[in-house]
């Protein structure tokens, strides 16, 4: 795809779907919070205040305070880095590992293909969130393992996609020519085939990002990975949940809303990116 083509498509995709622009806006906001978090937050996210427990939203505390008197706005802002970081690392890892395994399976075929395929089938034989729980339980309850678990349950999607795309291209003329030219297998794959499948893989990744955020937050909601008092959206929702029956809604609504906003943003971006790269696939 030429650059002119891309910009024309971009214009079309934005014009057709103004929501993509909204998503870009939200993304900028999220990235700002993730990068500058602690300096943007009006209060220290860990500072407790016994005199201001569960204060409803006000000018001083726009999102209110939690049961320990911590400012919820500050905690929501500071948590962005951890939440996006966990999901992003998991997506990058599954992208790289899935691409490597999938390309090897698709290009080499034979036993490599069978073993990789069986491995992915086995992962997919589990309800994915349940498998993630099992992995965290086995590896140990910390943030790194949350990332590993989220990486593993997302792996099959990348791996199968890369396998299919590589397998389709390995016998095409240009791959054949590269082989005839005396390139090693790895060079043929890395220089001639993989660059062609990167764009659709990126679409997968950005569609996957929202799902990764949901998974990581779900795991910390049930008490895995992130430990209090670390600010993280999932754990904040679960801490706020106990005060619903007495009507203190702000303690769970704001972190939950941040979560929704982030997932919503990445889902829309994924759709937008897909329209941009492959306008035919629009449903």
């Amino acid at each position, binding site marked *: 795809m030429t650059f002119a083509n891309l910009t024309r498509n971009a214009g079309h995709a934005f014009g057709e779907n103004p929501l993509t622009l909204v998503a870009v806006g939200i993304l900028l906001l999220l990235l700002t919070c993730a990068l500058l978090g602690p300096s943007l937050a009006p209060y220290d996210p860990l500072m407790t205040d016994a005199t201001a427990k569960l204060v409803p939203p006000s000018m001083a505390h726009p999102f209110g305070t939690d049961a320990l008197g911590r400012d919820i706005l500050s905690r929501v802002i500071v948590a962005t880095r951890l939440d996006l970081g966990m999901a992003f690392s998991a997506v990058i890892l599954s992208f790289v590992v899935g691409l490597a395994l999938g390309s090897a399976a698709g290009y080499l075929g034979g036993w490599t293909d069978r073993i990789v395929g*069986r*491995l992915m*089938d*086995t*992962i997919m*034989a*589990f*309800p*994915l*969130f*349940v*498998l993630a*729980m*099992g*992995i*965290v*339980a*086995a*590896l*140990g*309850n910390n943030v790194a393992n949350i990332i590993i678990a989220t990486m593993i349950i997302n792996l099959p999607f990348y791996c199968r996609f890369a396998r299919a795309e590589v397998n389709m291209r390995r016998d095409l003329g240009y791959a054949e020519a590269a082989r005839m030219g005396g390139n090693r297998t790895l060079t043929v794959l890395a220089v001639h085939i993989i660059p062609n499948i990167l764009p659709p893989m990126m679409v997968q990744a950005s569609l996957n990002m*929202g799902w990764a955020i*949901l998974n990581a*937050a*779900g795991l910390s*909601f*049930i*008490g*895995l990975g992130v430990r209090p008092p670390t600010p993280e959206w*999932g754990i904040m*929702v*679960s801490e706020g*949940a106990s005060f*619903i*029956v007495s*009507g203190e*809604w702000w303690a*769970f*609504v704001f972190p*939950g809303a941040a*979560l*929704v906003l982030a*997932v*919503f943003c990445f*889902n*829309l971006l994924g759709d937008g990116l897909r329209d941009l790269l492959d306008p035919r696939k629009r*449903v």
Partner: protein
Amino acid sequence: MNFVWKRLLATLPSLAGVVVLTFLLSHALPGDPAAYFAGPAADANSIAEIREKLGLDRPLVEQFFYYVADLLRGNLGKSLTTGQPVLTDLVDRLPASLELSAYALVFAIGCAIPMGVLAAIRLDRPADHACRVIVTVCAAFPTFFIGLLLVYVFYFLLGWAPEPLGRLNEILYTAPPRVTGAYTIDALIAGDGEVFRAALAQLVLPAISLGLFALAPLARITRAAMLESLSSDFVRTAHASGLPTSKVLFTYAFRNSLLPISSVLGMVFSFLLGSNVLIEQVFGWQGVGAYAVSAVLASDYAAVQGFVLMMALLYILLNLLVDVLATLIDPRVRFEG
């Protein structure tokens, strides 16, 4: 019938994979179960003793055979937190989770299919756009957050829903005698209308929160499948032959959309069984998910592995069921694959 056997055979590798992976999760990874079982006061000697007792000092392959032999005897080990065999614990709690998931599935299908069909018929009109908005919003909401929002609105603000504390208000009602373990069904069997209504009232919010997330993929695929069959030649021919619109829509277009719809059911089950854990946590539901969460937090390995294994088996079984149903919907499936 031949197809069903073939499909059954095809689940064997998945089963084997699941057993191997759960074994690896419990045995070959960091974290020393022997040290854990021995307790914090144990010295190296007593840890070694326990390791020997549990068979952890033997080669991995040998341990695997013991593991499989135990599984075949239905022995999943003993839960450290409840002191009961894990299998008993799980069988006790499974009906609660299944009941919740079943209601959620019924809700999701009941909403998603009419929505998808309507969106396809009214393509690019307000109904279609509304459907797209609902789907996008549902896909972005974490199940546990929807659950909490519903509790806040319908329990705290409006007071329509009962307190979100489990399957039945044990102070006002007694659980029906256990037949299936699902309260609504058991209450009907016992002929107790009041308990049935009470149990159903407890189910409404968790089932809706769980169902909303499954709704998005179902509605999306229904719309796409309907669009495809509506633009097909046989639907055009049916229209041209002057058949009534409802007949064309349901007998011709919708029946042909059922196959793609059944193909996403696998993904929907994966969502439901996974999110069940979260929803049980929100609503204090006494199911396997809540059991597994407390087991994970207490490092109760046997219970967690038992839960993961059981969920995987259940999931394989459900997928099998969907595939068999698909052959009933569309005989072509039997000849492919």
